[in-house]
């Protein structure tokens, strides 16, 4: 199999993106103070989180696979994370 990158793999998925209500929010101030940004970036298999030039955490919520790993490893309060609204988000066709 040819090697695949995360974006390649995500491109095979089907998503119904909720443009109005993103389901992930980062408390940037708390993230900075707790230093948990790198943890979020490393743990997320969809590469939803990234380090912006100004040091804040970028969030590409549309790629989210809804596993909940980021919430589990984040310091309390850093993430406001819910499942997307009903019907939105990733839609597995295989599972």
């Amino acid at each position, binding site marked *: 199999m040819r090697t695949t990158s995360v974006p390649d793999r995500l491109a095979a*998925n089907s998503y119904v993106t909720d443009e109005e209500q993103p389901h992930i929010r980062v408390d940037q101030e708390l993230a900075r103070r707790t230093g948990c940004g790198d943890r979020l970036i490393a743990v997320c298999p969809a590469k939803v989180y990234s380090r912006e030039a100004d040091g804040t955490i970028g969030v590409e919520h549309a790629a989210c696979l809804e596993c909940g790993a980021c919430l589990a490893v984040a310091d309390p309060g850093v993430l406001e994370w819910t499942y997307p609204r009903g*019907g939105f988000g990733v839609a597995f066709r295989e599972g």
Partner: protein
Amino acid sequence: MTAEPDFDVVVVGAGIAGCVTAYRLAQAGRSVALVERGAAPGSKNLSGGVLYSRGLEEVFPDLLERAPIERRITRNYLQLLNAESAVGIDYQDRRLAEPVNAVTVLRARFDPWLAEQCEEAGADLLSGVRVDGVLREDGRVVGVRAGEDELRAHVVVAADGVNSFLARSAGLRGREPLHHLALGVKAVVALPEERLRERFHLTGDEGVAYAVVGDCTRGVGGGGFLYTNRASLSVGVVLRLDDLVAKGEDSAAVFDHFLAHPFVAPLLEGGEVVEYGSHLVAEGGLAMLGEVVTDGMVVVGDAAGLTINTGLTVRGMDLAVASGVAAASAVGRALDAGDTSRDGLAGYRRELLGSTAGRDLQTYAKAPAFLERERMYHDYGALLGDVLHRVYDHDLTPRRHLLDVARAELRRSPVRVRDLVRDGLAGVRAL
């Protein structure tokens, strides 16, 4: 004044646990709402894919003829993976085919079938509805909230999976310690059916399940798996979250490493990734099983933390079935008795722990701690690989007896004899 309930039971989550509970209750003539946040049942769900099917066959006797299953597993392959070598135990057995013991499933195809059975039995399926929390009155759960809507019921069943926001909302679960959770990262790789049969030596609808330990997770506690579907492979890693964080590894990089490993890549050759997903796995075993009953509510499946990982098999779906069966019968009895308080529902926990699945949870209670031993993930596989290398590598030095070879390799390995003895004993007791 308390409003009249809309349903006898509201089940939140149309995964395996929720569907089995809803089906059983609807079949018994109860009014049941089955609420699912995915646009369709199964569209949010992911597992490795090996379903030990005997329990579900008791609920649906014609399961194997009617449900969309992929393959019957008749071959189990345990692979100890090292950077340069791999040692495999290939176990094939006709007895696993008749009666069928385990099958592979793809949840986005399997769960819709289950939900359909619930609807045929009379349950109301509400898809595309995310439940936001429980409704409480006088301290008891009386229904659920979804946006502006409220659904009231005598009993709420939280079947909303490993992250169970519902169990949290009812105060039954807190923040889970990281060593109770693992991250599963998985891809489905399409491969023409003929190719797949040839590559894995399969006939008809038979299939193989690979469990891989060692150099597939870059030293992070956990393992890899590769299961055959009809015309695709389910391939992935399960990584203990505490260890992933402690080692600072990147989950996607670990997954890439597994796919590219010289002993895995050839199995995927010519395939195409058709889906990439991730999901948490409840790993705590019995230690993670919290309160599963409160006034007006029970918790089933992953939401209750019901998974057993022995390193050789990950089991959650059959436990989800067992908890659904136990919950449905306890809820039925509580409704009959008109007592859906915590006491009235208490039969559920007893029945769950008394079931085969519940007894297995107790049997494997020590497995999670055992699997935290670091040596399990690299040293043993490497040791075995080195011993076998000496056996097969005729490098023009005189041969030595196997026992001498093993002793010499053990001396070179970081494994001490007392570790071997200790881990061996612990393993025998835990697994």
